[in-house]
């Protein structure tokens, strides 16, 4: 190395970095709950739950929402503001639909005799989907915020940061549900 050369520093946008650590942190909540659940399922005296059919639909809806979000990001990159807002709205509506489906999933669970209060094998399903829904609401608020800036034409190909962050977060939440759903599915057959 030459004497006055100064080594380059690794840098990425701090806000993007923040959202990634934030997601790691949230993952730890789910990882701890899921491992508690898995240990619980391994103990004698438990029971398997018939997952509500609504959970299947909500899984499809949340993946759809994720796709809309990505399309909106692509439109933003191309400065196509009409489709950008349309897809954004699509992802919001499917996201809200997901919450509704989760709620009806709980209703189905109750109808099937699996209550929040009772054996932990049932309670865990409520806790896992509930904590996830709670985070999904924060993602929805984020989308609303982006939509609001999009109306003011503040989200465009030169200003991708906020939509990039919210898209990453939204994919994460969708992926987290798919992971929770698959885990719940395989531990209840």
């Amino acid at each position, binding site marked *: *190395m030459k*004497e*006055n050369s*100064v*080594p380059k*520093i*690794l*840098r*990425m*946008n*701090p*806000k*993007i*970095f*923040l959202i*990634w*650590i*934030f997601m*790691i*942190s*949230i993952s*730890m*909540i789910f990882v*701890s*709950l899921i491992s*508690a659940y898995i*240990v*619980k399922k391994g*103990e004698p*005296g*438990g029971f398997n739950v018939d997952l509500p059919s609504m959970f299947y639909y909500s899984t499809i809806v949340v993946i759809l929402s994720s796709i809309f979000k990505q399309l909106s990001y692509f439109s933003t990159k191309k400065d196509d503001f009409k489709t950008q807002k349309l897809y954004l709205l699509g992802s919001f509506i499917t996201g809200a639909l997901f919450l509704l489906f989760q709620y009806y999933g709980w209703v189905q669970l109750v109808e099937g005799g699996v209550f*929040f*209060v*009772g*054996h*932990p*094998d049932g*309670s*865990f399903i409520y*806790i896992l989907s509930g*904590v996830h829904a709670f985070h999904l609401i924060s993602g929805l608020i984020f989308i609303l915020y982006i939509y609001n800036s999009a109306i003011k034409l503040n989200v465009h190909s030169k200003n991708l940061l906020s939509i*990039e962050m919210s898209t*990453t977060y939204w994919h994460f939440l969708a992926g987290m549900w798919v992971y929770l759903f698959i885990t719940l599915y395989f531990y209840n057959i």
Partner: protein
Amino acid sequence: MEITKTSTKPKVQEHDHHDDHHDQSFITKYIFSEDHKMIAKQFLITGIFWAIVGGAMSSLFRIQLGFPDMDLTALSPIIGNWLTPQGKIDPEVYLALITMHGTIMVFFVLTAGLSGTFSNFLIPLQIGARDMASGFMNMLSYWFFFLSSIVMFVSIFVEGGPASGGWTIYPPLSALPQAVSGSGMGMTLWLVSMALFIVSALLGSLNYITTVINLRTEGMTFFRMPLTIWAFLVTAILGVLSFPVLLSAALLLIMDRSFGTSFYLSDIYIAGEALSNQGGSAILFQHLFWFLGHPEVYIVILPSLGITSEIIATCSRKPIFGYRAMVYSIFGIGVLSFVVWAHHMFISGMNPFLGSVFTILTLIIAVPSAVKAFNYIATLWRGNIVFTPAMLFSIGLVSFFISGGLTGLFLGNSVVDINLHDTYFVVAHFHIVMGSASFFGLFAGVYHWFPKMFGRMMNRTLGYFHFWVTFIGAYLVFFPLHYIGIAGFPRRYYSFTNFETGRIESFIDLNTFVSFAAIITFIAQFVFLFNFFYSMYRGRKAPKNPWNSNTIEWTTPREPGHGNWPGAIPKVERWPYDYSKPGSDKDYIPQHIPLSKTPESNMPEDSSR
């Protein structure tokens, strides 16, 4: 993937407008400040407040343990109905006191007060950043902590008293209000307070990590960072990974307490009546709790170790011995801290095979810990030692880290732990290795960086007095506890004199001695407090670089304003430990001096540092 995207714009210049002077109102400067230095001071002052509360509580229950027959009616104006009619501390209040003492010291003083203060204060200054990655989040972090403090403080005064199930709040004791009066409202407030605390800790940690990774000044490569920054970085990583787990544990406990679920409860009979809860497991809580709880003890000690590394190198006028080994040890400790949690649960009925796995993993931690201890001693060896109060406290930390760490070998062993579990031996171990050692790191940091925080020097003589009383006092308090523990005294018991075995009574004088030492040590801390607040206003004005230190925080003005450096941020040209370099006429070469200016002392290996 977004994570690999790097921006080519030099971020340093972007922040240059910060050095423009703009007047701030009282509220934005002192209360809702987004400046990392002010937030650090807020954390420090709040931490000091909590340390006084926690210390006073320990004095109270030490009176009960050391002088069980003492009439405390004279204290009733202060502690009111916490006394029995005979003038003794009420047994349930005693449990509440030890619970609060533990919670306050571990979380509010040694996590928020230590990490909050020094990570906030030193990270931007030592890596050459204008401020934290997000000043707003940093401010939120403090105010969540403040809110959490208020809730915890209020819980001390509610009807039924604060949480009393021990700082580990094991269910079913903490889950059932019938168990102890503190498990009612007090426990609810404890959980609310801790939830807020976790939010605060996470906001802080996210910021620390992002700042260290992304906002370093030009030339500040990872291996040119001072060891303080390494320690804060790993501490923050541990926090981000472990505090969410405590949140899950607390969430399930809240559900059990308030909504009637059975995550932790099963087969419980109260007064012959069976509770309806079935299928839960109290051990699940222990697993979740200690998955946070064990990294937490490293969250507490690592910042202190980082601070000490910096101070010992500076005040020995020698490069730190084995810089890279120190970095790898910090990482080693960090990684291992996640795979040893079950050593807190050896007697919970776990599989003995699992016990030996956790024993081995636990004992492996001795390796990086010993590397660090040896490196401290090797740095001191034949150094040109300057005994500032900060240096004395750092050496004190090394002493505690070794003597407390050695007893960890016994406790980490699942076989020996059967005998020692939940005795005063455990209390002695963690009060020395994690309590006293971390406190000494905190004191060392305050004495060392006080000139940078407030632009004035602390009084040395009072510092020496504070050190010697605290150092000797801490050993006198905690060393005898080992013997009390080996003799079989369980921790958290209100009284030992009612067993009438003859054996236990023979230790009462030792307990009296410990209580005496504890109260004197506690009172001595007020010397520090006086020194702290007096020097803040009346201390001698500090020179720019009072300890002739290499790190770049000493290139800022005496009282750095918002943005830290009035002009451009200095470029970093070398590692931070060029002390007493052969050939150089001064015994230190600060980090911003380029190699081209010191041809007389350059070494062939310098170009790779």
